């Protein structure tokens, strides 16, 4: 028994040290690009695209299910987006409330019989409306089919070659779309999808798609999520994007090439992680076609989202994420360690499996052994102690490092006190926040096996004033 625990301890220690080092390694990979663009005048660099008629037009899709409270203000804020040519398509996914009625009233919408090309099969479309005030706003009323199905219906109706999907609870900065489209335009279409990072809006003041004041929220729970985002985006995503093996545009705001998405078959209705699953499928398509098109991630925060403030909501969010990840990896298990899919198969897939999905299992055992070792002498207390140090290292130090790295590169939070607060909170991560999240993620894995459909609900306060 002792030997078993001892070996487990060594495995976990090795795992954590290895992950930590790979985090640092990945960050160093991304560091140069971020640093390079650090001082670039953002306004100047996008100014020209805004005036340019040849800038690709974009369709913005807004799936809405029972969003009567927020849908109109979401669409209003999209009107303020700076972009030369865009259309907004709201998809009412069989809401039981007055989502459609609110839209029709606010934007003077009338029913239009419009020829729709069915690229992707969806649940039945009941009616299409167009706004009299802003003809580029349209509304699809359809039978309920889930978010992926709603997005597919939006893709069918959209006129433009690129589209992006906006969640009701996210606010896109008014130059966010042009920033995200910039790599696509400058690559002359070689980039087929881009993602921009998401920031947590809690604490900051955002009005009419303009961030007025960046500040930190008071609740430790939200502060920890900010640190977590730094860790995920700066360390994980950027480097993978540089290597063209980024698997996730999820939790980010993304723009996609419509034709490619249609070729890939649109969003998958059978997973809760439809956005990640789509990106993996696009990668698969590119690899199978041996195309040299790419998917890119830009470090600039372009989109703001409201993070859960209560344990309850945070928990259901994490369960959902974990399930989405699981389902995606399961669906594409064929790619795992398959040299045909290049670095995606050999590196990204295992990385997401071991670090993002199963990391929680290792950590869980780590915590268990530390407890066991210290209180019930299941293992040598010294080993337990080492494990404890490594856990802190993995949980707290890496997060604290992420805070410092953010400051070295993007430094978006304006005050010195912001930096210090974030750093100090990051140090506490291994002692409370991480165990909590680990528990939920483990639960998530279990639930995935049971395949229970359950859209995480989120209590929204509304972030735009």
């Amino acid at each position, binding site marked *: 028994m002792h030997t078993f625990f001892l070996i487990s301890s060594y495995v976990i220690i090795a795992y954590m040290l290895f992950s930590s080092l790979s985090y640092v390694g990945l960050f160093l990979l991304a560091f140069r690009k971020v640093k390079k663009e650090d001082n670039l005048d953002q306004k100047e660099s996008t100014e020209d695209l805004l005036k340019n008629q040849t800038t690709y037009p974009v369709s913005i899709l807004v799936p809405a299910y029972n969003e009567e409270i927020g849908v109109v203000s979401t669409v209003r804020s999209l009107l303020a987006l700076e972009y030369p040519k865009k259309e907004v398509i709201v998809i009412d996914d069989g809401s039981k409330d007055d989502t459609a009625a609110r839209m029709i009233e606010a934007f003077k919408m009338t029913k239009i019989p419009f020829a729709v090309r069915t690229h992707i099969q969806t649940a039945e479309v009941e009616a299409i409306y167009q706004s009299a005030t802003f003809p580029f706003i349209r509304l699809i009323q359809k039978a309920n089919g889930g978010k992926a199905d709603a997005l597919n219906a939006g893709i069918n109706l959209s006129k433009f070659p690129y589209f992006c999907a906006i969640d009701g609870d996210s606010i896109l900065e008014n130059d966010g779309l042009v920033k995200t489209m910039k790599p696509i335009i400058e690559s002359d279409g070689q980039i087929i999808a881009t993602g921009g990072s998401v920031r947590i809006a809690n604490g900051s003041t955002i009005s009419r798609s303009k961030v007025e004041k960046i500040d930190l929220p008071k609740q430790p729970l939200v502060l920890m999520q900010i640190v977590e985002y730094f860790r995920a985006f700066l360390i994980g995503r950027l480097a993978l994007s540089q290597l063209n093996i980024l698997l996730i545009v999820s939790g980010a705001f993304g723009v996609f090439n419509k034709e490619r998405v249609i070729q890939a078959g649109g969003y998958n209705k059978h997973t809760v992680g439809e956005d990640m699953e789509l990106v993996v499928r696009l990668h698969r398509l590119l690899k199978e076609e041996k195309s040299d098109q790419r998917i890119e991630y830009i470090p600039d925060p372009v989109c703001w989202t409201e993070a859960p403030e209560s344990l309850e909501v945070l928990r259901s969010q994490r369960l959902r994420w974990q399930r989405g990840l699981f389902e995606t990896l399961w669906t594409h298990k064929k790619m795992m360690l398959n040299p045909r899919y290049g670095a995606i198969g050999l590196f990204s897939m295992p990385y997401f499996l071991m670090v993002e999905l199963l990391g929680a299992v290792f950590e869980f055992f780590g915590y268990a052994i530390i407890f066991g070792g210290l209180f019930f002498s299941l293992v040598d207390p010294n080993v337990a102690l080492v494990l404890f140090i490594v856990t802190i290292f993995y949980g707290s130090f890496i997060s604290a490092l992420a805070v410092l790295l953010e400051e070295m590169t993007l430094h978006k939070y304006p*005050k010195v006190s912001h930096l210090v607060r974030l750093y100090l909170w990051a140090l506490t991560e291994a002692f409370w926040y991480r165990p909590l999240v680990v528990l939920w993620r483990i639960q998530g894995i279990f639930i995935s096996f049971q395949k229970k459909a359950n859209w995480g609900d989120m209590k929204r306060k509304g972030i735009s004033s």
Partner: protein
Amino acid sequence: MTINHIWMFSAFLFISQLVLLVILAFRKHRLSAKEQTISNQYESLTDSFSSYMMDPEDDRFIHEISGITHQTIVLERLLNGYVSITKGSITSPLVARLSEDFLTETYTKQLAHSNWAMRMNTLYFIEDFHMQSLIPQLKEKLRNTTRLDQETQQLIRTLASLNESDTLLELAQFPSAPVRLYQDVFKRLEEPVMFEQLGAVLDDKNHPTALREAAISYIGTAGLTRFLPQIEDELQSPVEEIRIQALKAISHLHYLSEPNLLTPFFHSSAWQERMFASQIAGRLQLSRFKEMLGELMGDSVWWVRYSSAEALVQFSDGDILLDHLSVNHPDRYARDMATQWKSSLLGSEE
């Protein structure tokens, strides 16, 4: 390795992190103090700057700007603000004078700076302030480049904005130069030069296809009807992309001297040509093609069916035609398309 070593190693890491934290906090503090000074200086200068821009005889501003610490940044902000708020500032002799007096030297240095972002920003500002004085330096820089990267692309745009006509030829040296970039150049050239260049590109069929495509497409979007004869000639071009661009341009220009030029395109093997031909027939209300549009409603490509239906809708008797086709067309897809469009006169945007 004992547990003590591990402790010591951890402590070492922790302390290095703390040192880094202190350094970063100090840097942040310094940066925000600097930013504060800059914005104070900016605010305090807006008044004399505005007076100067109204009436250069009131030269308080020249004295004030000469005496401040962050001269370049503050002046950049003021000029940039002025240029973005007021129209016609491209030709403002005052913007030219201020930027050339105070920024030429700094910018000459910055163009060779090791920081990429710094060089990019400088290029943007040179364009915004229309700094003719830096043309020689920019040309020199372009001569020394071999790769058409982001920086070179901006360099090309900046030179074009200074109305340098040979920018096009310089750009054509890069075989990979995209259509988009050529269009950017055309857009920036000023009128007589732009017309000359467009004319020259259309006349010489040996130019790269991308350049010719860009010229044709620019003529369409800018509505330069004077080039219509040349555009119509391009309809006979052996290169498919050129023909498609020419069709697109005609659709933008809303004009065609001889409608029969369109006839061959309805039977083209390239679906884009069939689609644009239908689109033009609708926009220009060329009733002679009504029958043809009816036929194309049964085309194998969805976009062609869609455009021909859209074109039919634009005729005054479009509803009748579609009504007829929705029942009598031999093709099932055509009947579906006609049904969907029948009463959707509202749905055709723009």
